[in-house]
């Protein structure tokens, strides 16, 4: 019962904090416009990429952010404690929205991406089927019963909390660190060079190929290439085949361009040194200790 009270309190706090944030954000909008807008060019799929560049904490040291996210994630899973999960959820939301300057609606829309998977996955844990009316709560569905119990429901809610906390930790990282920096952190962690170079090139190439694809698609569309299902299938095949050829050609031209700038088999990029502030490390350490203490006192 004690535990439930604590959870309720935490939930209330979170709700208040969220509301306050919404109002604050609205106020901010009235005065000045978005300072960090880069421009929506590629549609919804790249929102996360765009947020990462626009984040106000993108100047933080990337290694620090990645390590913080991973440590949090591990603690979240290993400690398996709803209070820890809630604390993580709140702190990560604070980091992304207040420190990072992401609006609440955008944060929620990013966080809601995995919701269907989570609900479907956890529902299977909470409910069971039987021919007899058993369990604390049951629902008569024709010839069988769906039943569940308070314990099961609690388990389900705690699991959802844990998953969301873990997701929020990783989102804190991806919403504030551009991919190139995450790759550079992996390079420092001695991930094989081949993988690092592939990641770099793939990341750059995604945008180029998408551009090429949208151009081809538009030109096919303007010639009635998608008028019915059959034609659409044909067109899709044609575009896909063409893409392969274009990407092979592009790869050649790319290699020429790299060679003309003295590329000799090793790809090293200039990275900006971003200092870690002592305050950040101390705050992160305190956060981890608090998580451990939370776990210790509520286990």
């Amino acid at each position: 019962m004690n535990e439930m009270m604590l959870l309720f309190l935490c939930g209330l706090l979170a709700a208040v904090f969220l509301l306050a944030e919404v109002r604050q954000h609205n106020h901010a909008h009235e005065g000045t416009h978005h300072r960090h807008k880069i421009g929506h060019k590629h549609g919804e799929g790249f929102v996360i990429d765009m947020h990462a560049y626009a984040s106000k904490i993108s100047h933080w040291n990337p290694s620090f952010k990645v390590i913080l996210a991973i440590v949090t994630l591990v603690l979240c899973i290993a400690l398996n404690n709803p209070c820890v999960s809630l604390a993580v959820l709140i702190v990560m939301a604070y980091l992304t929205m207040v420190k990072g300057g992401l609006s609440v609606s955008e944060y929620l829309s990013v966080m809601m991406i995995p919701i269907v998977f989570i609900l479907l996955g956890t529902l299977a844990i909470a409910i069971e089927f039987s021919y007899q009316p058993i369990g604390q709560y049951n629902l008569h569905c024709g010839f069988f019963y769906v039943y569940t119990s308070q314990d099961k429901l609690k388990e389900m809610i705690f699991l959802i909390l844990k998953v969301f906390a873990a997701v929020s930790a990783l989102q804190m990282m991806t919403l504030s660190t551009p991919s190139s920096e995450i790759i550079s952190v992996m390079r420092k962690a001695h991930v094989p060079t081949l993988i690092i170079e592939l990641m770099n090139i793939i990341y750059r190439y995604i945008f180029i190929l998408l551009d090429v694809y949208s151009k081809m698609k538009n030109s096919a569309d303007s010639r009635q290439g998608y008028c019915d299902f059959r034609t659409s299938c044909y067109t899709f095949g044609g575009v896909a085949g063409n893409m392969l050829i274009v990407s092979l050609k592009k790869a050649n031209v790319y290699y020429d361009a790299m060679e003309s700038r003295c590329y000799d088999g090793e790809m090293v990029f200039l990275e900006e040194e971003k200092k870690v502030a002592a305050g950040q490390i101390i705050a992160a350490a305190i956060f981890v200790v608090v998580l451990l203490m939370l776990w210790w006192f509520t286990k």
Partner: protein
Amino acid sequence: MKQPILSVRDLHYVYGNGQAGLDGVNLDINEGEKIAVIGSNGAGKSTFFLNVNGVLKAERGEIIYRGTTITRKNLKELRKNIGIVFQDADNQIIASTVRAEVGFGPMNLKLPKEEVIKRVDEALTYMNILDFKDRPPHYLSGGEKKKVSIADIIAMKSEIIIFDEPTVALDPLNAEMLEEVLEKLSREEKTMLISTHDVDFAYRWAERIIVFCQGKIIADGSPLEIFQNEEVLKQSNLKQPMLLNVYESLVQKQLVADEKKYPRSIEEFQKMIQQLS
């Protein structure tokens, strides 16, 4: 006479499908020259550039840079000193931030990191895009990407800069910006080669024009010489520059005295007209 900065002797290049790309090219380029390379599509301009840069390996012939013949061993020296700004910036930009992109060349030259950072800042300031530093190239516009691709080469401090059809796909404002950059570079005594289909631009800007046709150089001379040579123009599918055409018509109608003072830019032309009245 000064020694040419780059000499090309009897260069032959054959494409993978057996087609001749370059067919005996001979050329001397002097320091600080502003050269326009013109010729129809597929005449071998881009192939020539890639050969000169050592990216494509010629069948036959030699390339001499400042008196040393280029072999496999000192190829890097050649690439360091000749930079190419490619036609399509998207085919050149490789890194995922502008900083990393401009630093790619200097990093490959194995310069110390402080020097790389200095050069990147210099090149970005030169192109007036210092505030793009942390931006990813996929959120830049076409003109901005072009600027980045020029900064790439400026950061390498190449002595010869080759522009492969730079004015293609640029709006008038960006094309003007490009000409300003070219002006700035020529004040610094950089040697420049620009391939273009824009005869008006070539006439206005170049000191020397080289005409490619089917893998050969068919003409090499001052803009006036080239554009008054009907045969060369016809052979390479080119037209006379507008200003030259207008001037010659005026002379023909005896509205302007035939003083052989060919105006090269609109400004010069306007001055000439003003003196008439």
